[in-house]
């Protein structure tokens, strides 16, 4: 199934604010679900304080927070565990909005209904790529990062601790680079699947053979990732005053929206790069389509 596609020069995250907003809303809903048990528990523990949970973040509240950590440690660890399980489930479900976002960026049809349908249709292949990326990512991290780092560690005993740290971190930094490359590689594969209806395997093989395209996507995605982290830092720094909690909440959500936008921008570039890749008969995973 191939929906009518946008011209390549019309692909742009900025032209699809509705899709970005939908993904942001999706994530907000997920966060709401994840947050609910925490809010419930905190509400029960300190909600009856006349100042509510603001008391937890006060000068004197620090002890209250400590009491909560000390006396409710088992509840907190249960909450952490359930939150992690829910996040794992979300990692799978999130492939639906991922497919939908790619479709919305690539297709002429701007309706969210179309995006949802396409997201559902793409789910299996997105899942295939996700599985591959997890396996390769873990493998890369171990092989390039963790194992060399562990092998280096005993050899650093006589170095200055700072030098030793740099030496043993070096493989992890390399692994980080490899992961960035893998991330771009799979984004390009996703684009091939969403825009050119490539199969999981063909898309994967095609991007493996197109390091130049992947490299160009990395050049686009890295600055966006950095900016996204910067926005995250901005959000983290903005936490007080407590009485302006609504305003702060709003700022945090604007940051969240912008971060989805940055991600969409990278995906848009992956989609346009996928056209270029397909045009190269040497690399294309979908010859039949290009021949016509």
């Amino acid at each position, binding site marked *: 199934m191939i929906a009518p596609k946008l011209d390549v*020069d*019309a692909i742009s995250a900025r*032209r699809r604010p509705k899709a970005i907003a939908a*993904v942001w809303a999706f*994530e*907000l809903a*997920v*966060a*709401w679900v*994840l*947050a609910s048990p*925490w*809010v419930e528990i*905190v*509400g029960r523990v*300190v*909600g*009856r*304080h*006349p100042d*509510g*949970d*603001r*008391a937890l973040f006060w*000068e*004197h509240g*620090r*002890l*209250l*927070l*400590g*009491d*909560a*950590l*000390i006396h409710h440690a088992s509840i907190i660890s249960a909450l952490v565990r359930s*939150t992690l399980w829910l996040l794992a489930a*979300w990692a799978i479900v999130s492939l639906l909005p991922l497919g939908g976002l790619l479709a919305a960026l690539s297709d002429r049809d701007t309706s969210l209904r179309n995006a949802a349908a396409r997201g559902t249709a793409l789910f299996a292949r997105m899942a295939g790529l996700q599985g591959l990326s997890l396996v390769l990512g873990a493998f890369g991290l171990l092989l390039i990062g963790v194992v060399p780092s562990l092998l280096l560690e005993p050899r650093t005993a006589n170095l*200055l*601790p*700072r030098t030793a740290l740099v030496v043993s971190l070096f493989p992890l930094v390399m692994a980080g680079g490899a992961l960035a490359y893998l991330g771009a590689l799979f984004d390009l594969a996703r684009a091939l699947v969403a825009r050119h209806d490539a199969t999981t395997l063909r898309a994967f093989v095609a991007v493996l053979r197109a390091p130049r395209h992947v490299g160009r996507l990395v050049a686009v995605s890295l*600055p966006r990732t*950095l*900016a996204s*982290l*910067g*926005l*995250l*830092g*901005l959000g*983290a*720094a903005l936490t007080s005053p*407590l009485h302006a*909690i609504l305003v702060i909440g709003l700022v*945090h959500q604007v940051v*969240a929206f912008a*971060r989805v936008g940055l991600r969409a921008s990278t995906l848009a*570039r992956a989609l346009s790069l996928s*056209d*270029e890749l397909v045009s190269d008969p040497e690399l294309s995973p979908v010859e039949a389509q*290009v021949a016509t």
Partner: protein
Amino acid sequence: MPECPCRPATETLLATWTRDADASNGVRFCMAKRTRARELLESAVFVLVGVVVGVGLGARSVWPKTPSLPEAPVVTPPEKGFPEVPRTSERVADYTLFAKLDPINHVVEGHGTITLKNRSSAPLSSIRLHLYLNAFKNDRTVFRRARVSGFRGGVEGAPGLVDVKKLSWDGVDLWPKHSFVEHTGEYPQDPLSPGAPPAVGTAPSDETDVMVPLGERTLAPGESASFEIEFHDELPEISERTGYHDSFHFVGQWFPKLARLEDDGTFAAFPFHHLGEFAADFGRYDVTLDVPATFTVGATGARVEQKVEGGRRIERYQLDDVHDFAFTAWDRYVLREAREGEVAIHLLSPPGYEAAMDRELLSVAYGLRAFGARYGAYPYADLTVVHPPEGADEAGGMEYPTLITSGGPWFPEHGTHEVEGVTVHELGHQWFYGMVATHEVEWPAGDEGLNSYAELGVMQDLYGEGSAARFGDVDLSYLIFQLRGAEPDFEEPVFQPTWAFANGSSYGSRVYGATAIILETLRRTYPRFDAAIGVYARRFRFEHPTQQELFEVIAEVAGDDCAAAARAALTQPGTLDVYVDSILSEKKRPPTGYFDDGGDPSKRKKLGAGDESSEGLGYANAAWIGRKGAPIDLPIEVELRFGDGTRRREIVRFGPTATSPNKGAATWRRLDVDGPQPLVAVIVDPDLRVPMDRTRLDNFATREGHSGGAPVTRERALAWLGVLARSFGP
């Protein structure tokens, strides 16, 4: 980029890629220069946003600054002022020692003179010595077989021992007559060392406590005796504060040491116990150390001589009015010298630990000011701070006279203060252990507990109430760490002997955390409490005070009420929890029912609802405040909040109070606070004057409809879990 054969993209700035559909070989793409430039610009902006905003703001919010060195705290003296401190101790046990370290075989060869002055009222026919290194001799010693976990001393490396070669008095060798005091389970009521059989064959079960008869002679009261001694140490792999790790050596508890002589002529002797520390008499130490020339030395006291000859470094250290001597030698030390007032500070650390040294220096410099102001000026000329290398952590966090060991990571920790905490703690021991030399085995809280309290005070001075750990706006107070530490395994008394504690973690929680929290409670509740500790530390400088003497000083300076609370909290089992059970607030109604005027049924009146207006009657308000746990009586402040936003404070006491001890201890009190406004909320101990309260989560109550809910948590959780959702999302 391939050559661009097609037309430049001019239609739109947003069109990055153009498509040339009529090319016969399919579709060709190229990038227009303009859009390429734009893309670069965009990327640059993104990088800038990332680095500047992210690092600048995000990191700043979790990285507190290191404070500059503050002035000494302002200390409120007691009404009669602080007493003068004595200049010298009564010198009972003097040591002149020569020690040669062989760092390859980890051996110390020692010899010298020990002089004992019989300060007791009885003639001595024998002496008791501690051979602490023998605790590491085999796995059947009291130290190794004690069923204690949850505290330091877990490392089981190569064994260590001390062999005495000679102990002579006026040319007569007394050592052949020595006997080890057996500790096969009958050791003072020790439940932790159940009757283990003698180790192997006829080997003694423990060789840390030795009795040496003086032969035909006795040592009369007031007389002194000098004993010539020779001994051979084999150091253990670092364990329980002493030993080696590669070429690093920390040499503590290394020489035969006289047990403390009591007034009645007995010796305060005991085997080396896993949780126990030491007890010794004050004296003069004159120790000459002989190590390879490539090694750097740190030691108790002041270096008075040094020379290098024959590939050996020989350094002589002297110090009066102390009760122990330890040294360290390593060929990789970095040495930094500094001064604080009259005190020369020597910092020794592994290479690359400059950041830790900075914080250690700040900690001891401020510590000298603050402890000095509160507990009397530091009387010695030197202070050495040792940061053991990685792998030798067991040597860290220990106190010897004028020599302390710190610990913690080499990098500047942001958000926590591990290095500062341990350094301040060990420095505090110069007062509580060093100068106020309580019996550390019989009364471990006497040094560790009082010192944890003193440490808490200095850490709060330095970093405010918060900032023990700071991550974003979650800012945990230093007190929380003590509170966490104080959470009991068992509700044992705080003031009891080392060997009476259930296990290592119970010992740790009661002796360190709980004492600090209880004393901090007294400080926040009674204005003169810290001054009382100040008087105690000055009056008993160079002495060996008891619990009783501590309580007497508290009563004298801070009052009987404070002393009674201290005694109750420190000497009996149990903890304290104050809480609010419930509140009541009802609009007062006019009277209803039958009312007989003058008690005469014939003059009965029936009043019904609505007969009179309830206007102006106000509210019936009450709050029930409870106390659980041990009957410890403290003035507990309660904040009452009313419907119009007004607040009022009341003091609640549960008794028994020092002034009316026979009234008994109540478990609840009701506060009746009728008035024109409804009572909407109650907070017990709003200013945190009672940190020893087990939990503050039950310290508040609100009337229906007046609770604050959890809006901050909702917002924070949405934001941070949203970040996680983003990370796991599309």
